[in-house]
């Protein structure tokens, strides 16, 4: 088949059988030097990407192995981070894992419902004249660098959180989680970090879910309306079920961002190695923030220890992103079916 000349009648497929946009690959290079070189170059760079991913995992694994063999304590349950201690190097990820997960969870709890709301607003509720520029604005905001979010978070958001902190402490202090033990300290805590992360991932989640909502088959919506559904019932019965996989994967993409965010967390959080369920008390830490703060003064064992924590972060984000992609990929199979 590959050696058949391109103009062989049997090889010509009518244009109608191949869907538009799906390039036919029935014509392969026929052994010309240019073709061979080009194919090698292009598949080579594809392989290069795989090699880079493998190398990231490999090098982090190698360094983490070196680090873990020196750790005198349990890597998973230790609170403090003191790998360069000559007498007793000890470090663990308990505080970091807790901080990372809690701040990302707060971010998701705030960002996902609001992002779905905005996406619905843009795709189904807003007057067209507002929707278009607003969608554009959201895309632009997705491009604002994280250091700017960090700067704004530390110098604007933190002072403005004081009121909310007091309010939560006053009315919800009995829940233990919202108890403030040092009054008057700036709100450089995990809760503020969570809110900042929510603001940061909002544009991404919105952008992806909006695209999905836009692809909902028009016929589904009109059928719902024709049966007498109100707009909200139409959204609930036609738009949301169709968009659910898209919402899930958008949220997971946002979650990946929130888990790996470094510099915005580092500017806002005043870190320490205490694991506290008091979310409104300053302290705690996250994987990425810990790496950013500690690498400067880290010696060789310290660097390896940071690599070990980086590996944990890498694996977590890999799982989250891989999961999101699998959901999207499954969705592709039925998306266009009724359109």
């Amino acid at each position: 088949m590959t050696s058949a000349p391109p103009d062989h009648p049997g090889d010509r497929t009518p244009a109608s059988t191949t869907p538009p946009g799906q390039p036919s690959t029935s014509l392969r290079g026929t052994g010309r030097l240019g073709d061979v070189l080009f194919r090698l170059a292009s598949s080579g760079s594809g392989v290069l990407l795989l090699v880079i991913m493998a190398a990231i995992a490999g090098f982090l694994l190698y360094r983490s192995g070196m680090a873990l063999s020196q750790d005198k304590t349990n890597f998973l349950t230790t609170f403090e981070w003191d790998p360069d201690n000559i007498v007793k190097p000890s470090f663990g990820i308990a505080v970091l894992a807790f901080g990372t997960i809690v701040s990302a969870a707060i971010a998701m709890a705030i960002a996902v419902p609001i992002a779905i709301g905005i996406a619905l607003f843009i795709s189904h509720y807003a007057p067209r004249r507002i929707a278009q520029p607003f969608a554009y604005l959201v895309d632009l905001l997705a491009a604002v660098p994280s250091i700017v979010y960090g700067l704004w978070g530390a110098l604007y958001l933190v002072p403005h959180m004081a009121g909310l902190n007091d309010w939560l402490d006053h009315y919800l202090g009995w829940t233990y989680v919202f108890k403030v033990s040092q009054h008057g300290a700036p709100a450089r805590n995990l809760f503020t970090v969570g809110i900042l992360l929510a603001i940061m991932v909002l544009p991404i989640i919105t952008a992806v879910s909006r695209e999905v909502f836009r692809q909902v088959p028009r016929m589904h919506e009109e059928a719902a309306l024709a049966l007498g559904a109100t707009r909200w019932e139409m959204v609930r019965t036609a738009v949301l079920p169709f968009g659910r996989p898209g919402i899930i994967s958008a949220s997971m993409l946002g979650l990946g961002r929130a888990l790996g965010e470094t510099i915005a967390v580092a500017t806002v959080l005043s870190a320490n190695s205490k694991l506290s369920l008091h979310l409104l008390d300053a302290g705690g830490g996250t994987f990425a923030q810990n790496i950013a703060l500690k690498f400067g003064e880290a010696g060789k064992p310290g660097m390896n220890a940071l690599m070990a924590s980086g590996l944990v972060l890498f694996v977590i984000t890999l799982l989250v992103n891989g999961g999101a992609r699998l959901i999207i990929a499954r969705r592709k199979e039925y998306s266009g079916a009724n359109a």
Partner: protein
Amino acid sequence: MSTTTTVSDRTPAPQLSGRLTAAKLPRWAPAGVAVLSIAVGCVIGAGAGLASHIQWGLISALLFVVLSFGLSAKVEGVRQAKDRLATSLIWVAFILAVVPLVSLVVYTVQQGAGVVDGNFLNHSMRGVLQSGPGGGIYHALLGTLQQVGLATAIAAPIGLLTAVYLVEYGRGRLAKTVTFFVDVMTGVPSIVAGLFVLSVWILGLGFTYSGFAGSLALAILMMPVVVRSTEEMLRLVPNELREASYALGVPKWKTILRVVIPTAIGGITTGVMLAVARITGETAPVMMLVFVSDSINPDPFNGPQMNLPVYIWQQYSQVNNSFGYARAWGAALVLIAFVMALNLVARGIARWRSPKAGN
């Protein structure tokens, strides 16, 4: 039955506001309720002596949601009321999201506008006291441009070729693996990319901190983004163009270079520019790899350099230093303006030269 469907096929979706339905709130009702609830919210806020205007706003929003639900439930029935509840909640979500995002941009412009001037743009921090006034971002600007340029020079060709592989050659297990890992690679945290380059390039191979080391990490972050967008653009190129080229006896590689890529070049440029905009704002990996410098270093391969995001971080890190904060805001304004300009231009190109599918 069939006649009904044909009718509804032809006419646009019927609005469910027929005269045969039960009582309906007048069109001005939402606006009226909004005005009323804002007024009541302000009265309550002022009466209870709440200092924060955000609380006034929240009370008003809550009142609006409750009032319009109650009113509608009484006049129109529960289903319509739920619809109005959902509508008002979605509007509230919209406003809730706009407030911080607009505040971010406005605050940055407010704080930064007074700082940015000619002197700020073309001076470095050499010989300037960190705790004193003066100084500028020239060294950081230069570093950013060089590092991002180098990263683009590495990542754009590799990304482009990978996309060509996926669209034009890729089949079978390898192509599927590459697609999956490109997707996963988009989510690699930037600090992990930085750690990787640090462990290979600096700790492993023994090179020193330099702008180029930063570019390597940025290139890793940029590649998957370029692959994704280029791949989508190449898939939009109509098959007929390829077939016409093959029919004329043009080899495949020449078809790709002369027909496929030129057709999609607008979209590819957009994708690359958006990727550049994304890596320009990366702080963490660059901070680990280029080190920090206060003076102008025009050689990205030798010695520590500076970079705009790292500059902002450095200026912010001197706690409670109003001159440092001012410089940080100035640099943040320049960075936002640069990134947004790249975005706007990229989207302009996309609109101007997007390949039109199937004609």
